[in-house]
């Protein structure tokens, strides 16, 4: 494919201008001028990618499966025991949360947090790079897919009132999930998002804006246009006036700060529909620890960040789903370095008002050697696309699942039922 669809559609905007029709980015910009009063009612998804492959059976511990303890003599999380802060936190008599995820427990109890276990990609790759690529494009086994699944969701659900902030990623580069023809913004810090030229700034900014608004049709110009629309809107909405509310305490980590800023943009009503961020450090080949240690610290930052976001957004969570994902799980047996190697299935979390929480979803495949995938990894019982598709259909209201998940026919019969009807 010599021309990406992003290029193609972007060009079409310019082409239409030459035929005297208003190009979409100009319409968006015009709308942005009158922004500040974007509807609060549309559903929002906040997607969080745990890069590096989270060890699912450490995060949500199958303490009822004896094979778990024999496979991991040093790194297993102990069974729940009252008064033992190092034990798993019992969810349903079989599964328990890692102690590092303690802040998730109240949300689970309130029915706001669901776990899907033994979930992942049917592809057998154990390459981080490929597996992330497959999960973000939602086309396991096919590397030729040019765009990400969330971008296809945006493409499929046309929104004439979309603002430049319809899709925002708090990462320094746009993630694969959001690559594609539908515009999306990547930023790391709201306060740095703009031209900083000092006195006479507006004039200089205008110069840059014009440099990028010429009749050229390439990625640089398209991106430049998006950037200047977004700056104007941000200035008007001033998201940084919103501090963390409801006693929410975000971790000081980059992850915590990304979530805080997502909350600020949501509160400022700049038109966010898709928010994304990622968090690394899950590739625990060595010394991962059990109840405490390296993985415990990661889990704690992860859950405290999400819990803070949840609290902070308060009533807004009634129409928001936070969905976590990781490219694969890890080996059932611990390796020679007190860690785990690349495996197959893992688990994910879904939180929010629309989520039918308080339950660990999915069929448990078991950890006995004969039950393992390729004799070593947690087998797959839920295709991640069935979870993504359920969220897209039942939460985001997408009618075009086939275009979002090419080569896959999402079947509502396979949905796990994590979203309230």
């Amino acid at each position: 494919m010599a021309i990406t669809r992003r290029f193609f559609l972007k060009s079409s905007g310019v082409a239409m201008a030459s035929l005297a029709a208003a190009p979409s980015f100009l319409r968006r910009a015009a709308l942005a001028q009158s922004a500040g009063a974007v509807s609060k009612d549309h559903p929002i998804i906040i997607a969080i990618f745990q890069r590096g492959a989270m060890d699912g059976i450490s995060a949500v511990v199958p303490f009822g499966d004896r094979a778990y303890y024999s496979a991991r003599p040093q790194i297993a999380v102990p069974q729940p025991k009252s008064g033992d802060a190092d034990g798993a936190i019992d969810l349903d008599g079989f599964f328990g949360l890692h102690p590092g995820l303690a802040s998730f427990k109240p949300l689970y109890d309130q029915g706001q947090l669901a776990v899907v276990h033994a979930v992942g990609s049917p592809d057998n790759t154990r390459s981080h790079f490929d597996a992330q690529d497959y999960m973000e494009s939602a086309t396991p086994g096919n590397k030729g897919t040019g765009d990400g699944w969330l971008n296809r969701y945006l493409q499929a659900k046309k929104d004439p009132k979309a603002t430049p902030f319809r899709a925002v990623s708090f990462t320094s580069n746009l993630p694969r999930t959001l690559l594609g023809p539908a515009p999306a913004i990547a930023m790391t810090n709201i306060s740095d998002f703009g031209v900083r030229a000092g006195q006479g700034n507006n004039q200089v900014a205008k110069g840059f804006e014009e440099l990028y608004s010429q009749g050229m049709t390439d990625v640089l110009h398209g991106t430049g246009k998006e950037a200047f629309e977004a700056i104007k809107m941000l200035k008007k909405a001033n998201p940084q006036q919103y501090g963390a509310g409801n006693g929410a305490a975000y971790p000081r980590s980059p992850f915590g700060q990304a979530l805080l800023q997502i909350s600020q943009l949501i509160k400022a009503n700049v038109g966010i529909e898709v928010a994304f961020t990622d968090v690394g450090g899950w590739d625990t080949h060595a010394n991962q620890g059990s109840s405490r240690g390296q993985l415990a610290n990661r889990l704690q930052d992860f859950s405290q960040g999400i819990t803070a976001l949840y609290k902070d957004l308060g009533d807004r969570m009634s129409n928001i789903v936070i969905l976590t994902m990781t490219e694969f799980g890890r080996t059932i047996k611990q390796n020679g370095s007190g860690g785990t190697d690349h495996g197959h299935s893992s688990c994910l979390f879904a939180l929010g008002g629309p989520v039918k929480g308080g339950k660990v979803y999915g069929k448990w495949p078991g950890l006995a050697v004969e039950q393992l995938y390729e004799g070593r990894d947690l087998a797959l019982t839920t295709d991640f696309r069935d979870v993504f598709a359920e969220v897209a259909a039942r939460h985001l209201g997408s009618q075009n699942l086939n275009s979002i998940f090419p080569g896959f026919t999402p079947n509502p019969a396979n949905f796990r039922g994590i979203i309230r009807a």
Partner: protein
Amino acid sequence: MKPTKRIKIDTAARRINRRFRSIITAAAPVLITATLVSSLLLSALSPTARSVSADSKSKAILKEDQKIIHLLNRAGYGPRPGDVEKVKRLGIDKYLDLQLHPDRIDDSAIEARLSGYPSLKMSIAQIQEQYPLPQLIARELGLRQPNGQLQPKQNNPNAQGGAAEDENQKREYRQQINAYYRSHDLKPPQFLLQELQGQKLTRAIYSERQLQEVMTDFWFNHFNIFWAKNADRDLTTNYEMNVIRPNTMGKFKDLLMATAKSPAMLVYLDNFQSTAPDAKVPQGPARFNRRPGAFGNQRPGLRPNDPGVQGQRMPNQNQQQAANQLRNRKPGINENYAREIMELHTLGVEGGYTQKDVQEVARCLTGWTLDRPRQGSSFVFRPWMHDDGEKTVLGRKIPAGGGIKDGEMVIDVLAHHPSTAKFISTKLVRRLVSDTPPQSLVDRVASVYLKTDGDIREMLRTIFTSNEFNSPEVYRAKIKSPFELAASASRALGADLTNAQQTSQFIAKMGQPLYLYQAPTGYPDRADQWVNTGSLLERLNYGLALTTNRLRGASVDVKQLSLGIDNSDRARVLDRAIALLLKDDVSSQTRAVLEKQLKEGVPVKGELGEAPRIPTGGDEDAMASGSMEALPSRNKPVGKAEKAANTERLERRLGIREDAGPQMAMSAADIEIARVFGLVLGSPEFQRR
């Protein structure tokens, strides 16, 4: 199929035409209406959509000057003033030949600029001694790390950090540690990162061995490691200086072997811990100098397993636990390196290996580990850790009892595999030619690889002398990485870089934190990695900060650049900027916008605009906490105090002062000129190479 973001207008029209036809003939469901397609065609073919430079591109080969500029952009970090003329005098072939033999180029002038980076010439042992972690000093002083955010609160996740008292404790802790660093003439490990970043930028800007710098960047990224992973803080300097740099243009196999045996890679991809499952740990003192060192690069409790950039620490009790685990640990295989050496370093993910091959390669490489990890750290093969059974790798039997030869044989097999030839060639062509590597060229380079036993120099020569390389299709077709942008801007402006810290921070904000890409893939070498709204804005801001001298440690003399042109003669200033930065090759649209800006003025008087700021943090905090957000600067500009104060006042009045002052006073008129240059640096044309 790789997405390409950059389409030159004339070729785009042809491609669109092709696509248009295929849409019609296929009569398949299409994404867009026929109206859009035809209007796109109209627009792409209409004269208004053509750039000026498209005229020159429509000819089959590049003009002589363009050829030189192209080579300077791809085999280096872009032309400095006068470079094109120099190459012309020397002859382009001679220039290329010299660049392919960097040791024949006198580069002594760079030494003075590198003198501020003492760690570059230190051994690993010296580095470990001179750049200790704050935690080590705390232990030496008998200090306990104060409680606070850094400690996990397993039992009470909602507990708030204990406010003021906590803050006081932390400050005191930091002060004591910093005092120790100063009094013992030591530095915290972040300085190692700063020195690495500084030397990389300095060399890219000032070294005459430009291709050597490009290839160092390329191979480091190909064999990527993450500076902040555990002991790699101490080891990355050695990795670049002694593993990558000497092998950039030799035989690929030598480079592969050097990385395989490098302490930094052994740590980064965990192979130093990989042990035959039935290995018997030998008894007695002869084994190692330190007990847990058998499996660990670190003395647990001394060197926390701390990713640093993520701001987490391993608390004391966890360290204790980790130590216990090390002692109780059952030995076993770690597959990490075995997988990546095939997927990322040699064959490529589609190179034809299986999970079984990964396991077999991992067995071959057991026992490739580190000797004296805390006292110099060097490669050693430990027979007792090695799996000495028979193995089969990619269909080849590796007989039992081979010892270290098993791993060496694996490397030999991988280095001579046709998939490796293809994979390495594709990556080289993508980096040096185009995001969509022409297959014809990839095939030729791969055959050179196989014929010359993986001679990198010959592969490079094939690329740079190919028609595909010198084709107008690929001229300015690559989007510069943030590092390339900063280096090329500094070169084009003749900037004087005395401290690279703030420039490095800007490069990170543009999307490329140097030595800090966590994944073993390295940065993807494609436009879509670099172009997005946030990073594009930072590119614009970088250009402005550089030309208006608001980047600490980098100074540009716009007055000298504009050759004393009176700033009232704005048109000539603009001409000069376009000549210097864009080599007169500019779209009519860009020129028109710049001229309009000039006419309307780039005012420096009048009401204050938004105050600009480059965030920097407190040095004290950064030193003691190991934070990488704010690193202390050693080379604060030493100007005459009075002049500096005047400058500062002027900047504050003009509202252009960043946290640090410029190297020289700028008059309001100079700032106007500087902004013109800043705008040109921010133009779409300058983002390309």
